[in-house]
């Protein structure tokens, strides 16, 4: 693998992580959706580049899905949801922006520490790429638990998924990447449908309130 190829791939992967950080930084809903779209775009490019370099044509499908679904349809659908339900357009944080960023940085450090012992040559994926993907996954999860809005949680979930796909496309010749990607999109779609059908306005648990009171006597 030539250095140029490697560098470009690295830059693309790095941009996915960077955009992940930006997701943590955002305070406004629409901005968040836009950044997510960009992250998906970055993922698509990375997949496409991998497909190009290694000649694994099925990865083009992955890139296409990322581009169309994650960078296109889902951001659009989320925007419509916000407008349709009149959802708050500011992000309600459980952990402040600053601390979230610090936590994110810590997670990146943790990821790097974790992959350090991996023998460099033995892995199909370089340690750097693995660390990037791992960080992206963890940051996505962090996003899910430090932001209260339903939409932000969906985005966090998808950011997590971006990290997964990033890892998957990075490995040479991983079978079933497309299939698993699709399976994942189905789940994401379910969540979004769920929000839509169950009229979850602000939070995942906004269903709870009356319900908890009458919860089969389990609550006293």
């Amino acid at each position: 693998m030539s250095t140029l190829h490697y560098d470009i791939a690295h830059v693309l992967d790095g941009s996915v992580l960077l955009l992940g950080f930006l997701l943590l930084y955002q305070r406004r809903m629409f901005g968040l959706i836009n950044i997510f779209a960009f992250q998906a775009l970055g993922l698509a490019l990375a997949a496409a580049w991998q497909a190009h370099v290694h000649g694994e044509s099925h990865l083009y499908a992955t890139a296409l899905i990322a581009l169309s679904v994650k960078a296109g349809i889902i951001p659009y659908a989320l925007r419509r949801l916000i407008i349709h339900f009149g959802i708050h357009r500011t992000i309600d944080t459980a952990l402040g922006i600053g601390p979230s960023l610090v936590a994110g940085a810590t997670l990146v450090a943790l990821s790097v520490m974790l992959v350090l012992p991996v023998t460099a040559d033995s892995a199909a994926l370089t340690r750097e790429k693995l660390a990037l993907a791992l960080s992206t996954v963890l940051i996505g999860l962090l996003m899910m638990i430090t932001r209260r809005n339903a939409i932000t949680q969906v985005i966090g979930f998808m950011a997590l998924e971006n990290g997964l796909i990033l890892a998957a496309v990075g490995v040479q010749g991983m079978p079933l990447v497309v299939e698993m990607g699709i399976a994942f999109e189905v789940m994401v779609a379910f969540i979004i449908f769920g929000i839509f059908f169950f009229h979850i306005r602000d939070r995942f648990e906004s269903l709870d309130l009356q319900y908890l009171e009458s919860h089969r006597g389990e609550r006293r």
Partner: protein
Amino acid sequence: MLYMILGTVLILFALGGAGLVMGQWSDRETVEGWIYAGSAAACGLNAALMVGFLVSGASGMEAAVPVGLPWLSARFRLDGLAAIFLLIVGTGGVLSALYGFAHRRHTQDPAWVAFFFPLFLGGMTLVPLADDAFSFLLSWELMSLASWFMVLASHQHHETRRAAIVYLVMAAIGTVAMMLAFGTLAGAAGGYSFEAMRGADISPWAGAMVVLFVLVGAGSKAGVVPLHAWLPLAHPAAPTHVSALMSGVMTKVALYAIIRVLFDLLPAVGWGWGLAMLAVGGLTAVLGVLYAVLQRDIKTVLAYSTVENIGVILTAIGLAVAFKASGYAALAGLSLVAGLFHAINHSLYKSLLFLGAGAVVSATGYRDLERLGGVIHRMPVTAATFLIGSAAIAALPPLNGFASEWLLFQALLNGPRLPEWALKLAVPVVGALLALATALASACFVRVFGITFLGRPRSPEAMMAKEAERGILVVLVVLAGACVILGVAPMMVLSIVSPVVETLMGAPPLADGGRGLLWMEPLAERDSSYSGLILLVAVMGMASLMFLVRRQASGRLSRSHAWDCGCPDPNPLTQYTASSFSQPIRRVFATTLFRAREDVEMPEPGDVSPARFTVSLYDPVWQWFYRPVTRVIGWVADKSDAAQLMSIREYLAIMFAALILLLTVMMVIR
């Protein structure tokens, strides 16, 4: 022979199952009749076989049945120790079954009692036979489970359910402790057969743990203080014939487990455990009987008295451990013989007392002593047999209770030979505790017999009581006869028990003074001896002499009102009650120990409402042992309940935290 016994167990299980099926079509009385008759036959056969086995002195026999753990299969082994306990099970079983048979027309228990009864017996028969940990515990737990169902017979009452839950949980604790003991013995390779355990090389530390676990596991089943709490709740709650089995037989099966592990499976047990068992046994004996003397419920009194007797037997076992650890094999054997003999005796007189009490309870409908009285006139046979049982349990000569206690005291008197100072000093104290327990037991049974059978009836039902069914009387008379015979000719039992103990200890426990079956003479070098038969004959002779004198005296007898210092009161309520009877003992012993308090509520002068007298007892064992545990569990349960009312985001956060934690741990380790 072993296969025959296993066959009877199979028959017992089949009886339970068949009863369940037949119960759907046939009428209850017939079905229960068959079940009880079948159980009695099976147990009787077992007992007879065991007598044959013990008398013939046949060597052990083994069998493996391809069930249970696949690589182990269920192993059974019949040896002398097992045979002794099987004899107890068989005897207790046949008599209780006969009681159940005789009583079946008047029973008010739910039908399931009859179905679980043979299962219970089957379980108890299998425990001494089991030769591997798995079948042992399976039978053990089967025994607990079946008896638990029968404890629930009067499940409509809240107290019964409470008793049952305490019982079941304590049984589970006991079983788990036994599992731990056997697990330690078996080692990581899973040598679950007793044979493998005997040969296992076990570290002293592990051996100590085994002893601890067995004492907790089997001790809780036997009712050793402070693990006895379930016993006085559960034994009285069960139907009479089951109470008799639980108190008379099941506790012995638990002791079997202790003996089997301590003297057979473990290569050596430190003297410290002997000391511990002596202390716990003495304490159990005294506390048990003190509880007993303060109770109002006749069956509860009997249950607590079981605790006392278990304490006595445990003391004997502890003494055997101490002697064995110090190299006195013969004395260890003597102690163990005393313990086994007492176990046999207790199984007899406790069954007798429970069945007799059951007859009274079913005739009057009361278990409360304060409602009984004067029953001796209506139920003379029951009264006479109960009197013999009471005298036996109070260790009065020439009955069997005395014979075994005498033997135990003889063993105790050799305590000074023990090399360790702690033991030397413990032995007299334990001796004092046992003596105290014996004396209190006497007080306790004066009270039970006196209040129940003597005096004037304290309720109309007691006045109208009818003598029990003939079948029940037969059972009672047989048991009472056994108590007398074993007391008069104790060597009958000892001569078959001592070879068994000899194989365990490696030295003959009883010095045969050449005087044969007539004399109990435990130690050759000391001249202490006892002969119940000669004693009985001599006393009889003197009594007949006295009748010669009586013929010279005035023979006239007339009846009149009681004198009562000139102020007789026709109201039977002016009699001494059970509570007032125990008042002096309560004041002397229970004031500090149980914080007994007497509250008198006197009406104002002129007020005609009755005065009330209430006694409140405080049970230190519950207070310091059980309540904190339940409280802690309740508290934790309340607190952790909040864990199911968090939001999804918080659950995700927990998941995240778990992930990060595991990753960090991994990072650190790498």
